[in-house]
């Protein structure tokens, strides 16, 4: 059974139909990259997956449960789906370690010492342990994004969503973040990643999805999609992206 199954997903903002009919299923441990032109609804799709946007229609089945049902516990669900944003969104008034331990302590009622120990291990893992006690404003973008990943992992999610995690970064900082994500993928984390990093997509992803006009236009392995795209729109998009 798929970990996440999305059926007939639609999302409109007033008159604007952003997602028209999206059907995707994601297996446990699978790494999915989402590509597509600007405005094609990639962020909207990802945000629907943890209900930062409420879908207009459709079903999202997580672990056998429809998360769009009225009585579904959204907060509980969000704990099992971590999200990383393009602009990191670290809490600026907390130290790096507090950013990581804040939600586990508040939401999961973890003991402070336990959360701190776990937090330090996660910071170690993303290579940020030496910055545990500084404030986010003193960090580079790449460092902030790695802390944001640690923060999301601290909730022990079963799946991670990344919305262009490296596109706000200076080019020389992109690699560190991608390496962390690569390790995460190796450990078997289920991931959905919106990215323009085609190298990362090719090396790490199990599946690539090309979205355009509110539909999934093409859904295949990254190798297949990059070397031999079926759809004309995929071809046009890839030739533009890969030539830059």
């Amino acid at each position, binding site marked *: 059974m798929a970990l996440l199954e999305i059926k007939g997903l639609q999302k409109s903002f007033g008159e604007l139909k952003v997602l028209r009919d999206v059907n995707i299923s994601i297996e446990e441990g699978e790494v999915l990259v989402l590509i597509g032109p600007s405005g094609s609804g990639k962020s909207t799709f990802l945000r629907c997956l943890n209900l*930062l946007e409420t879908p207009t229609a459709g079903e999202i089945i997580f672990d056998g449960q429809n998360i769009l049902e009225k009585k579904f516990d959204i907060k509980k669900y*969000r704990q099992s789906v971590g999200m990383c*944003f393009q602009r990191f*969104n670290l*809490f600026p008034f907390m130290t790096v370690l507090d950013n990581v331990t804040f*939600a586990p302590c508040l939401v999961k009622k973890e003991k402070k010492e336990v959360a701190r120990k776990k937090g330090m291990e996660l910071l170690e893992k993303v290579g940020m342990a030496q910055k545990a006690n500084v404030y*986010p404003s003193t960090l580079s973008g790449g460092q902030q994004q790695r802390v944001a990943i640690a923060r*999301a992992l601290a*909730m022990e999610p079963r799946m991670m969503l990344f919305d262009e995690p490296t596109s706000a970064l200076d080019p020389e900082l992109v690699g560190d973040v991608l390496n962390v994500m690569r390790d995460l993928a190796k450990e078997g984390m289920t991931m959905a990643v919106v990215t323009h990093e085609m190298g990362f997509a090719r090396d790490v992803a199990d599946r690539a999805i090309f979205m355009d006009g509110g539909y999934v236009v093409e859904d295949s392995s990254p190798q297949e999609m990059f070397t031999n795209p079926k759809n004309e729109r995929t071809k046009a998009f890839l030739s533009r992206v890969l030539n830059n």
Partner: protein
Amino acid sequence: MEVLENLDFAKAFKELLPELFGEAIGIVVTVTIVGFLLAIVIGFLLALARVSKNKILNGIVVVFQEIIRGTPLLVQLVYVFYVVPLLIEVLMYFLGKPDFKMTMPAVTAGIIGMSINYGTYISEVIRSAILAIDQGQTEAALALGLSKRQAMFRIVIPQAFKNSIPVFGNYLVMLVKDTSLMAYITAQEFLMTTKAYTSQTFLTIESYTILAGVYLVICIPLALLVKYVERISNKSKR
């Protein structure tokens, strides 16, 4: 000229200053501190009501704010001091207590009037500070499994509050000066005390010059302190 020949600053200093720095400064400090703390509490509650999704609550608060901002502080003080006790007596009459008599101490009226007036202006400061916090902060909090309320109170409001502190400072200095309006409702603050002194001694020039000096001696250092706090808080921001 007679006025100049009779100038006697030494006498005015000796007699008026102890009065000003006796009971009068007690009143000014009390109204300033208590009024200002209450104003922040009121401002905070009004701001919360304004950013809430509750349309009715929102409407009530907007009307209230318009009333407060559309009338002078002096009129509000007079209203609290003279009218509110009468209204309460009327209310008690209808509740079956016709003998109920109410007097409002001037200082209490001052604190109530000041805190409501300043609370209303401060509420707009806090509200815009809340709205100015990046939406991404709330989203990150929600994505971590916080409830909307937790995201508001644990993530957004601490930042909004911190960003508001420098503006609070400016209001604090204004409030100190506005305590002079309480002379109109019989509070023995600086202005009232000075006025009483001149009517006994006719040392008009001396007294009011000293009065102005006293305000400056309090307000200028306070304003400098506010600037200093502002600088520190700007430095600690990202």
